[in-house]
């Protein structure tokens, strides 16, 4: 008997809304987030024409929030994919092969854990200069340690399982075993942590924007919208509220989805359903 998984549903719906907003942005708005700027319309409050009002440049905030979803999702998903690839590759191979490679990966993971990822990302952004590719690299290189740990511990426990040993005795190569026997069986926890990681990346983008190392304008990223509009909070509060809400809803969606997935995949945690 499986009850209503609140987290999974609400998280899924929120995430879906954000994804739809990003994908169908050109259909949902006729304006361009960059070039439809009219300074004569600057800082208009929300109304019939501009649902979320306009910003200091006279651009439609609704449009920019929609297109911002594309950027935020790109940042979140791509950086998380990079993280997962790094973390999984290192984690699985380290645990599978062991020895000095394991020690090395462990050491590296410890180092990565010890340096706060925001600071690491800050440093990488400072080297590469602000912009989307740098952001993807910075966030993609700095958050793989948890994935790596999970991959490593999963591998360690799976390694002793009969089917992995069976694959070895059947003559499978190491890489094939990692890809077909180990990887598919840690999809659950990795999916959970990746979902949470996407949310974290969206937040990190905002924090980096706040610290002055965000995305290349004029493309709308929620973090930079928020940071730039911060000073308008008295005269044009809508310019901060909507991108802020967008971040909140997106991250909330991914966090709930992650929790929901965890509940769904891990029966031990299915306590809420009693």
């Amino acid at each position, binding site marked *: 008997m499986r009850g209503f998984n609140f987290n999974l549903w609400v998280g899924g719906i929120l995430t879906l809304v954000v994804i739809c907003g990003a994908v169908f942005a050109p259909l949902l708005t006729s304006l361009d987030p*960059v*070039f*439809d*700027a009219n*300074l*004569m319309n*600057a800082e208009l409050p929300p109304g019939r024409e501009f649902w979320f009002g306009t910003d*200091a*440049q*006279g651009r439609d905030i609704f449009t920019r929030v929609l297109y911002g979803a594309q950027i935020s999702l790109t940042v979140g998903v791509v950086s998380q994919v990079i993280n997962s690839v790094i973390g999984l590759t290192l984690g699985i191979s380290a645990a599978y092969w062991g020895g000095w490679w394991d020690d090395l990966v462990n050491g590296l993971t410890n180092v990565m854990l010890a340096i706060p990822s925001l600071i690491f990302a800050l440093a990488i952004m*400072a080297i590469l*200069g*602000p*912009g989307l590719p740098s952001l993807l690299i910075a966030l993609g290189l700095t958050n793989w340690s948890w994935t790596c740990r999970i991959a490593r511990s999963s591998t360690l426990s799976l390694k002793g399982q009969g089917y992995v040993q069976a694959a070895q005795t059947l003559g499978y190569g190491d890489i094939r075993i990692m890809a077909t026997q180990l990887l598919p069986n840690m999809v659950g926890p990795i999916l959970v942590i990746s979902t949470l990681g996407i949310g974290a990346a969206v937040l990190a983008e905002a924090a980096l924007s706040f610290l*002055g*190392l*965000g995305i*290349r*304008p*004029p493309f709308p990223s929620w973090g930079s919208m928020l940071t*730039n509009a*911060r*000073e*308008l*909070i*008295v*005269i*044009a509060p809508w310019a901060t509220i909507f991108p802020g809400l967008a971040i909140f809803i997106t991250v909330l969606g991914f966090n709930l989805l992650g929790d929901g997935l965890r509940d769904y995949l891990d029966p031990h945690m299915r306590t809420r359903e009693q």
Partner: protein
Amino acid sequence: QDPQSGGTLNFVAPYGSSFGTLDIHSTPATQDEFPAKAIHRSLYDWNSAEGKPELELATNVEVSDDGKVFTYTLRDAKFHDGKELTAGDIIYSYQRIAHPDNAFPGARYVSGVVGIDEFVDGSADSISGLKAIDDKTLEISYKEPVAEPGYELMRVNAAIYPEGAAEAADFQTSPVGLGPFKFVENIPGSRITVEKFEDFYEDGKPYLDKINIVLLDDASARDVAFRNQEIDVSVLGPSQYVAYQADDALKDNILEVAEVYTRHVGFNPDYEPFQKKEVRQAINHAINTDLIIERLVKNKAYRATGWLPISSPAYNKDAVPYAYDVEKAKQLLADAGYEDGIEFEITATQNESWGLTIVEAIIPMLADAGIRVTAKPVEASVLAEVVPAGDHQAFMWSNVSGPDPYATMKCFYSETTRAACNYWAFDNAEFDAVFDEATAEADPAKKTALLSQANDIVQEEAPSWFFNYNKAVMAYQPWLHGLQQNATELAIQNYEDLWIDDTAPDSRK
């Protein structure tokens, strides 16, 4: 209302979240001038009212006929440690600034003095051009004639320390100077507190008992703190400028000044389209500069015509800025052979007044004229590296354009290197001729006229999109008086003239 004495001032240092070293000789950062201005004095000082440097530590100066030798009669003044000011202190301070072991930014202020080369290469222990005639008489000899040494010697990086003081182990933590306020305490990252120096050389000043110079670089936080009456002054950005003007409680206490900075987008002639004057002019025509100033900068700026700013003596009041004319821009582009438009990248920082915010606004405007622009965000320190190196197609910056028009226009001289300040690699024979003439000209008025003419040539050549001259805006609490309209940097105030009245809250009494 007459000035009254007493009280505490919470002044704000908005350009960073910490003070660097308290040894002001060693740092050119504006932020570090906030405490230094209270603690130290230099030979000259900037007179905001008249817009020129004036003698500060000397009562009189005699200039030799060839304009090379300056003889100062020093005033009676005491350092915070009770020592009397002598010519030796000034010589000590200038030699320290110029000393080859110290990489101090002020070194160039005295680089024209006789004997500096021997001092720098180590063959002389002292600078022969700095002479103490007696305790109160100082003679400075320059290699070339100098019109006004005050432009450089007024800088607080050229502050006068008591002789030998900087060698003391605790100078960093408790600096000693001639200024109106004594150093009391430094809470790193938070504030510096100074208190009234009773023996200050100007009678009756300073008025205030104590100043807390607090660090607060975040504009929003500053806004809240100011409205909360936690600080007495606040430097405003454009949006706050509007908000404060619209607020009855705040609008009467706003101080504005045209500062000597020109905001612009400089074009790099190494990038082919920019070698054509038409292209550069087209960009100037394609941007609705007035609209940006009005709506985005909220009128917190003055429309730029050429390079020299309004507060410059050589400013051409009759110059007409490039008109907003998209058709003309397209025409000019076509004339230059770029019918299909051009594209380029602007390297800029996050700065809202002279950075990406403005670039964002011009992108759609230029797009209308077929000019496709992308922004390349960099950090401020990187901008300052790539621009002198020429590693860009175009850059947006705010550069000092005064108060000395000669020093300013020299940057466009073809012999000035890019690494110095000719960021446009500007090379124009007509300009060079006018400038050579100005260099040779001894009469200040004629010199100014020639420089004005040179400025017109720069405007015509359009090495930059001339955007605006900064309007610095400071809000202050109603009980604060005596603020000066300092065009070189509004936030830097002569604290000794400030005073607060009885309406101040208890925390300031």
